[in-house]
């Protein structure tokens, strides 16, 4: 079950945060996302060559804690995509394909000429697409 998805810009400014749990814990999710940003910076600046290749976009599991896991993905333009999930077993391929679709939706939202780069994404269509991707992911064990 995906708890929330987030997009963070290259100056660590939040561009989009959407929670799918139904409970009113937006602040807690903000906090989780913020902590994960530190992990991403660490991974990018000190690459462990044996574990992760230098120029891989998908960063994998960042931050497993007691009830959730956070996966990260870094684009070429230093935009970070984060997924907080409460599932215990999610396949790597599922998450990778989720990030691919998420990135595609983000690129379409940013190509809007009325979107100001650096400001929050306010496109309703983007929100609808992201909800669709999340719904398609939840029951899926296929990629």
């Amino acid at each position, binding site marked *: 079950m995906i708890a929330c998805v987030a997009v963070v810009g290259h100056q660590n400014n939040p561009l989009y945060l959407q929670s799918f749990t139904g409970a009113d814990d937006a602040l807690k999710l903000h906090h989780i996302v913020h902590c994960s940003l530190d992990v991403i910076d660490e991974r990018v600046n000190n690459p462990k060559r044996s574990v992760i290749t*230098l120029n891989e*976009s998908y960063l994998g599991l960042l931050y497993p804690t007691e009830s959730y896991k956070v996966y990260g993905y870094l*684009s*070429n333009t230093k935009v970070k995509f984060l997924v907080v999930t409460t599932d215990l077993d999610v396949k790597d391929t599922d998450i990778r394909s989720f990030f691919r679709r998420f990135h595609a939706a983000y690129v379409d939202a940013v190509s809007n000429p009325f979107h100001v780069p650096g400001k929050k994404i306010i496109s309703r269509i983007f929100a609808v697409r992201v909800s669709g991707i999340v719904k398609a992911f939840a029951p899926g064990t296929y990629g």
Partner: protein
Amino acid sequence: MVSAYGRRFYATKPELAAHRIEAIGYQVGHQLIERYTMERPRFNDHLEVIKFICKDFWQELFKKQIDNLKTNHKGTFVLQDNNFRWLTRISIDPSSDNNDGSQGSSSEATNLLLYFPCGIIRGALSNLGIPCAVSADSSNLPFCSFMVRIKA
């Protein structure tokens, strides 16, 4: 678009028109680079980014690659295009050379036109994390060269 900005909106202030056109190019480059680098793994250094601009990015935009790339290894790159697609059909008025050195209207229009690809390159590079300044030189149409100076 360029002629609208050059003649109608800022007819008496060509510098403002140039600035505006370059800013439009900046936003376009910014957004395009997001789309074109989606599938790629991340870049390691500046040279790889410039090579990407010369090959894949130019290929997507102008259906050809940059013909010549020069660098001084100190942050300056010169991208040369032997047949810049957007300038191939520009007419050059042979009677525009005046003795007092004033520019013919055709070269002014060309200059305004060239601010747009300069903006595209600048937007693309700064979205990839490389702040820079781009200038274009078109003394010999349709041969065109863009000089990219990376701000350290």
